[in-house]
């Protein structure tokens, strides 16, 4: 019996020590990788720089905007897998932060899901102690595992290791101030497959989004730049309800300090060679897009760009 107790006790000690080590290791990897979602949320909620032009949005924000080409102060907060809920949540925080410069928000026209609910919480592991994250994000959908040191990072080592490696020596991705640029180009067979699997997308804006959007657009004097990015030609062809999207853009423009740059419906000169898949630009396309965007931003806010 004593032997069994020693055995179980030894296993408990090994487990606790390994969990602690896993926590420390993950923290180190996260804090040394600007591409990691946890780094981005930690930076936005707990350690925002005094002067910064944040770029907010989903994986498209992450892949399309090359911060070093836009401005020395720009940082890409795009997070893979996040939707418009997370984007607006980040926007609210960016507005609260000290910086005075403009905020760039990537707008996915199909991103306003029918429900105004969060989808990603695992990406807030290092920002969980921030009052706004606790109150507004975890408060609604508590996930204890995300709070508890030791188990909060369980299962994320590989993801963080990949981010850390991409930050240093990229093989398939290159990191630039938070942006993750895809070093992929597709051949004709791959494009045929991608195009065959595109489902028709539409613009949807449920009434539950009105209040949070209104709150973000009216409670700041900082210029908000909403950008609708390009997609692959076939995707654009399949998109329905363009008039509704134009109405929405008009609605956004009506808010003071809000600007909309529509490179989705107004610019059609992006080809498949610029894309890694149907909705994500590759590095070549991202550089082209960022340069084009910078020119347009310069016309709107010459002092910042």
């Amino acid at each position, binding site marked *: *019996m004593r032997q*069994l107790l020693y055995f179980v006790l*030894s296993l408990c000690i090994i487990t606790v020590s390994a969990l602690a080590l896993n926590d420390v290791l993950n923290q180190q990897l996260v804090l040394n990788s600007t591409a990691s979602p946890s780094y981005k949320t930690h930076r936005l909620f707990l350690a925002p720089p005094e002067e910064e032009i944040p770029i907010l949005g989903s994986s498209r924000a992450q892949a399309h905007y090359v911060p070093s080409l836009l401005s020395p102060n720009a940082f890409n907060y795009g997070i893979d897998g996040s939707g418009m809920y997370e984007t607006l949540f980040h926007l609210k925080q960016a507005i609260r932060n000290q910086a005075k410069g403009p905020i760039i928000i990537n707008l996915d026209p199909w991103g306003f899901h029918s429900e105004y609910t969060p989808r990603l919480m695992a990406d807030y592991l290092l920002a969980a102690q921030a009052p706004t994250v606790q109150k507004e994000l975890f408060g609604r959908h508590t996930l204890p595992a995300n709070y508890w040191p030791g188990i909060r990072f369980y*299962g994320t080592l590989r993801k963080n290791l990949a981010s850390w490696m991409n930050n240093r020596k990229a*093989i398939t991705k290159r990191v630039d101030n938070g942006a993750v640029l895809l070093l992929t180009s597709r051949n004709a067979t791959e494009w045929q*497959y991608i195009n065959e699997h595109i489902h028709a997308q539409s613009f949807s804006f449920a009434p539950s989004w009105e209040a949070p959007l209104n709150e973000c657009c009216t409670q700041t004097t900082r210029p908000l730049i909403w950008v609708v990015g390009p997609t692959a030609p076939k995707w654009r062809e399949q998109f329905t309800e363009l008039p509704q999207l134009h109405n929405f853009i008009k609605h956004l423009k009506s808010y003071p300090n809000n600007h909309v740059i529509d490179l989705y419906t107004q610019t059609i000169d992006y080809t498949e060679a610029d894309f890694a898949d149907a909705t994500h630009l590759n590095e070549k396309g991202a550089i082209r897009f960022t340069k084009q965007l910078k020119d347009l931003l310069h016309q709107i806010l010459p002092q910042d760009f």
Partner: protein
Amino acid sequence: MLFNSLVFAVFLPCALSIYWLLAKSFRAQNLFLLIASYLFYGWWDWRYLFLIAGCSGVNFIAALLIHRTTSPLLRKCSLAFCCLLCLCVLCIFKYYNFFIESFSALFQLVGIEWHPLLLKIMLPVGISFFTFQALSYTFDVYFNQLKPTRNAIEFFAFISFFPQLVAGPIERASNLLPQFQKARQFNPDVAQHGICLMIYGLFKKMVVADTLSVYVDQTFNNCAFFNSSLTCIIAAFFFSIQIYCDFSGYSDIARGVARLFGFELMLNFNRPYLATSFTDFWRRWHISLSTWFKDYVYIPLGGNRVHTGKLLRNLWIVFLLSGLWHGANWTFVAWGALHATFQTLAILRNKFFKVPTCHTFIQKVASILIVNIGVIFAWILFRAQDFSQLTTFLHTTIRGDYTPSLMALCAGMGPLHFGFCWCTVGLLAISYLFPADCKIEKPSHQLLFAALFILAIIFFGMPSGGEFIYFQF
């Protein structure tokens, strides 16, 4: 409740503590096990508890009736009624939609339009396992190999014993039921071995199977996109490791948990990929199901003590039924048929040619390799969701396109994940250096074994890996 969930991590120590506090009365322990098992199963969906209780009740009463009566007709009727009821329930939940849709498609082929009513019901987790376990008890009573129990609680606890309830091993009443009928003593050595088995099972599931499943799913779902034969071959190889680790991992955890409660469950996997023939493979893979079909289908049909034609017929029936048992899909039937073909070829070869037995190391390695190639090929049929995916996958594999492409080779998951997949396979190979079935003698070696796999689970486990594949069967 999943073995690889936080809820189970809380449930198990609580259940163990209460169970051993009741050690003075094994009947109280049985009652507690029954309650704990129903809680375990009801955590998924409490409504299906009626199903498992009903299945247990029918078999309990049928076995008593069969035992009490001396009339052969009444015995047969009781058995037939019990089988019919259990198999009807199984068929309704698992096969109704499949057969109706298949008939509808067949009618359409001959120009008859038929839009049948389809059921919108969820398949109860582990229904095939507990139905077969309950039926084996009634069969054993019918064939006078077992005396039925009069104690309903111990019988219900035997059917719903939570460690093996949802994905086996399919225990025989002759092995497990007597263990419910006597007092259990806590044995620290047995418990220690149980813990090692659990940790090893969790490692197989959370580190190996769940890591490989990402690559496998990505490749099977997008094989036309990756368009690479090498990627498909690697995915088929990874799936063979994934399904082994997923299922044998569950069996290991089940056996480990059972040992903590003082029960001994049968060995379900015995290093199947070291089999030197297809017959040997089925002696090592899912042993509890193979022996179930052998004892209750194959032998009653005549077994192998018949002429070759009948022997082949028996084999085909068993393998086709085994395929269908795995799921309501023609791909499973095709998988069963392929294994039956392998067995047929082996039997015909042995009949017409004098085949030397494997003696030398090289001969053994060659045999293992040939068997594994066949088994891996068959797993492609098993994994494919439908024949359309199967043909695309096979077409891409056979086409022989080995153009180097990092993106295709990594199945779009990145080189780190791809490298890690191979590392997990390597770790599994290292685990084979330890004695089979975690039977490690020295306590220091046991600790080393457990520590190695705990570290692997903590650093490289996939918490979001999800359900075990065999839950769906």
